[in-house]
């Protein structure tokens, strides 16, 4: 059942909850038919942004456009958004079929389909979400994954302009999540709806979304495809939040990067002198083979893995250990000093917004 995708434009949206700024100058463009993830830690404003798009929250400043049309002051009831709540919010006193039919039955008499049409549409949707024959059940008689699909069918019944999902897999166990992920991708492909979902799980965002919006403390840190986020993180927050990263505290003096008395060969891209952090992925550090060692570390433990050896290494001058996987041949023995080199790293000024918050978690 392909439906038409609408574009969404969010322009300078801000929202405060009392003294707490939940959204700060958020702007983004979502193309028709795109699948977009809002990714961020809790309290980053991702759910608030989703609710602003739905019209459940009225932003203090800024505008929301659907297909170029200003929808900022459009009531929730008139927005025609399909919203799937984190806890599904199914009507427990109604059967599955009545839940799905609800959005059609509450329409004003003139726009309401005939009851035969409603029944047919409910059957069609039940088939679509693979719940055929369960229309007479009550939500309490369904599993979590099945409830999720009822909530989706109910949202799709009103032929929404956009589909919004709040933590769609949050309440499910890991195995069901995996299945539903694939399934949601299919649903998106088949409906062609512009879809926005909220998640705090970066794997989920990266695997599913065409583009990911990374939010932190109410601000957009970066908008990009998963590849862009991995390869060109725009801030220290993005590199730490999306994928594993190690942060080395360094000082920059006139374009030279200094870590614990050693110079690291990193292009500073004109970063001004002062404290900074060098970020690298665990895969981007290796035992140096030539004389190009930038760092030195002591092997603290060794563990055999199918592919090679996993060594825990304490870097000199750094209070954290890191794990390096290397082929069996290059493996050192316990207590050895090993030379290390960085193949890829990024540098960000230490005072960058949101950095300290994340550094605690590494």
């Amino acid at each position, binding site marked *: 059942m392909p439906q038409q995708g609408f574009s969404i434009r969010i322009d300078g949206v801000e929202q405060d909850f009392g003294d707490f700024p939940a959204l700060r100058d958020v702007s983004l463009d979502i193309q028709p038919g795109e699948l977009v993830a809002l990714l961020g830690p809790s309290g980053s404003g991702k759910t608030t942004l989703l609710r602003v798009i739905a019209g459940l929250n009225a932003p203090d400043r800024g505008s929301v456009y659907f297909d170029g049309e200003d929808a900022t002051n459009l009531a929730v009831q008139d927005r025609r958004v399909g*919203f799937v*709540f984190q806890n599904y919010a199914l009507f427990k006193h109604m059967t599955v079929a009545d839940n799905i039919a609800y959005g059609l039955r509450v329409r004003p008499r003139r726009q309401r389909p005939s009851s035969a049409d409603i029944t047919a549409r409910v059957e069609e949707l039940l088939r679509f979400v693979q719940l055929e024959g369960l229309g007479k059940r009550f939500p309490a008689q369904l599993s979590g994954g099945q409830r999720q699909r009822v909530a989706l069918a109910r949202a799709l019944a009103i032929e929404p302009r956009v589909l919004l999902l709040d933590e769609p897999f949050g309440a499910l166990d890991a195995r069901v999540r995996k299945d539903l992920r694939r399934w949601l991708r299919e649903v998106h492909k088949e409906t062609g709806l512009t879809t926005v979902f909220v998640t705090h799980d970066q794997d989920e965002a990266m695997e599913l979304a065409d583009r990911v919006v990374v939010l932190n403390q109410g601000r957009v840190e970066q908008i990009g495809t998963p590849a862009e986020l991995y390869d060109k993180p725009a801030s220290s927050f993005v590199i730490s939040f999306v994928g594993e990263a190690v942060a080395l505290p360094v000082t920059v003096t006139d374009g030279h990067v200094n870590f614990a008395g050693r110079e690291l060969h990193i292009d500073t891209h004109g970063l001004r002198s002062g404290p900074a952090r060098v970020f690298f992925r665990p895969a981007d550090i290796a035992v140096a083979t030539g004389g190009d060692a930038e760092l030195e570390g002591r092997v603290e433990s060794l563990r055999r893995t199918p592919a090679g050896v996993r060594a825990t290494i304490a870097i000199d001058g750094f209070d954290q250990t890191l794990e390096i996987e290397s082929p069996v041949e290059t493996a050192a023995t316990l207590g050895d000093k090993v030379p290390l080199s960085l193949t890829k790293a990024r540098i960000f000024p230490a005072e960058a917004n949101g950095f300290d918050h994340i550094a605690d978690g590494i």
Partner: protein
Amino acid sequence: MTSSPARAARNARRFVAPSVLPGFGLTFGYTLFYLGLIVLFPLAMLIWRASDLGASGFMRIMTEPRVTAALQTTFTLSFYAAVIDLVFGLIVAWVLTRYSFPFRRVIDAFVDLPFALPTAVAGISLAALYAPIGWFGAPLAEMGIKIAYTRWGILVALVFIGLPFVVRTVQPIISELEIELEEASATLGASRFQTIFNVLLPPLLPALLTGFALAFARAIGEYGSVIFIAGNIAYVSEIAPLLIVIKLEQYDFAGATGIAAIMLAISFAALLAINLIQAWSRRRFGHV
């Protein structure tokens, strides 16, 4: 493991599923004993005493105009009072559960006052307020409305004592209703009224009926708060419980128990009916 036929027979005789906690026999016995001693035995005494009257005696009491007037007053006003409590109790419960505002807990505690107050105290205060010289009574009297010493006075007292029953039975169910239900209904295009009537009220219905039944039952038996404000004019504002007391004071025990038995029968029928509606509504809307 002795899976003997004797054990199988014993298991088959059991009419409760085995449970982790022992003591079904003891607690069930206690339940029967307690209900029998505290509830059923006194009621049986009442019927037994009333049976002295015989069929003709009952007919005489039932057709006595003053008795029918009192019974009618009690049951109709109790019904109206319970209906009023149903509406306003729901609103009070909703506001106290759904919104947070300064002094919410204090206001919440006020709801229980009619429970705790000696009914005579409530009656005297209400009478003082609504009397023609009282704070409410005086301005109302100027408008030509008389509350105290009329049936309206009885209604005011019954509404007062019944309110907490509705509030307290509905409150926990309201707090279980997620805000997301309203929001989901709105995103699906439902108007506010549709949301209230289709999404919010059906799950509350069983609790509302319970609250209604409790308020109604309490109002039927209410005596203390009513007699001070009712004026107790025979055929007009005389309630059945008062008539029983009057009969007792005249040493007309048979007459008193006769009225009591009739009240018991009507109350039982009314509560049974409410329970049946409730059972139906639980089946219909109870998947909460």
